[in-house]
């Protein structure tokens, strides 16, 4: 077994073609057995992918940027931002200094809290290797197996003129999330132009509440109640340590109502 530290994307692409290659970014989610069974471990840390920047209204986050770097960059630019709210509730300070956005996107564990916000922001993911190119994050999630042999290079999204709500349900502050609720609205002169409502941690990994989204688009939020918007929306959960599936379904409805009210719905 051999460790490699590629210095540029060409070298990375060449190494990704090797049989039995394992990509190591922060490494916090890679078990020792996985390292032992790998033929090649490709460490991403020497690649020039540790950046968080905004260009022409689009955020670009390099794959090796760690969660605390993202929090710092967004707090500096915005103060209050959806990603700050989501990531500050992820793991602990020393782990956030190690967990990279690339690893979190590729593995998409619920505990990273990134899945909901990136889906709601319609993030795109640029990858290097077998499937070289830019893909919707939603596509990467649904076709994860096809992306083996590729590595995340960059995440990008626009957050222009958005209002947001994010919350997560967990037993304690440092516990993994049982589910997350993300609502992102683009509003102009009180009228909702676009809406994304995402619940993660449910039976289907995540659910977009498309019907509810349709109900708010073109409307003024203050003329709708959360109950109107969420009528017919059923998110199913499996039983978890944080509660039974039925309980989590009820609590997620409370969170959705709370979020819509916070964004200006009628009470």
């Amino acid at each position, binding site marked *: *077994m051999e*460790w490699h530290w590629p210095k540029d994307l060409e070298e990375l692409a060449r190494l990704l073609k090797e049989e039995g290659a394992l990509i190591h970014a922060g490494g*916090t989610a890679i078990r020792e057995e996985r390292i032992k069974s790998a033929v090649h471990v490709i*460490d991403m840390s020497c690649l020039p992918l540790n950046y968080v920047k905004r260009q022409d209204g689009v955020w670009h986050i390099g794959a090796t940027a760690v969660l605390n770097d993202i929090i710092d960059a967004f707090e500096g630019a915005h103060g209050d931002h959806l990603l700050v709210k989501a990531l500050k509730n992820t*793991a*602990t300070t*020393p*782990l956030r200094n*190690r967990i990279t956005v690339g690893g979190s996107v590729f593995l998409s564990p619920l505990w990273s809290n990134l899945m909901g916000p990136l889906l709601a922001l319609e993030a795109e993911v640029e990858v290097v290797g077998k499937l070289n190119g830019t893909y919707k994050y939603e596509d990467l999630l649904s076709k994860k197996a096809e992306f083996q042999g590729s590595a995340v290079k960059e995440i990008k999204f626009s957050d222009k003129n958005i209002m947001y709500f994010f919350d997560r349900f967990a037993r304690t502050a440092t516990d993994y999330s049982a589910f997350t609720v993300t609502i992102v609205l683009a509003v102009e002169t009180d009228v909702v132009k676009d809406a994304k409502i995402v619940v993660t941690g449910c039976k289907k990994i995540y659910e977009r509440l498309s019907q509810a989204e349709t109900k708010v688009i073109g409307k003024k939020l203050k003329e709708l109640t959360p109950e109107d918007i969420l009528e017919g929306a059923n998110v199913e959960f499996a039983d978890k340590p944080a509660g039974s599936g039925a309980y989590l379904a009820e609590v997620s409805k409370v969170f959705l109502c709370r979020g819509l009210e916070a964004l200006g719905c009628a009470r």
Partner: protein
Amino acid sequence: MCEVMKMKANFKINGKNFEFEFPPHAKLLDVLRENGFTEVKCGCREGFCGACSVLLDGKLVNSCMIYAASAKDREITTVKKIGTLHEPHPIQEAFVEAGAVQCGYCTPGMVLATYTLLERNPNPTDEEIKEALDGNFCRCTGYVKIIDAVKLAAEKVKEND
């Protein structure tokens, strides 16, 4: 019996250069402890307790969650770089004065977490202290005295500056 393959890598630890040999799957915690840096404590081995905290290029991390190979050529700081028994850092003095040390097992990690906090934020609020120390568990003192120690440390560091 099969022989375990080993690799060599360089590290800069507390300002000095070292070359260590270790298995490719070894964790930084084990490599440090096996080479004499026993001030880095072994706790949960799952990234929860913070006993194994070190600074990697100035950032607080759990050394039990880092493969040693991935820290190759990087700068590692343990609590012994911050202060020693005979020349303690104001943060270490504050922990003793505030009664924030009982068994002492979590203290190296707590001191390093406080060090990185005060470097970024010399006047932390209680909430900011709790956030910065969220990855460091203490099973003896409770946390009231530790928070008092961080506030006292902030005062001492400012006086020393």
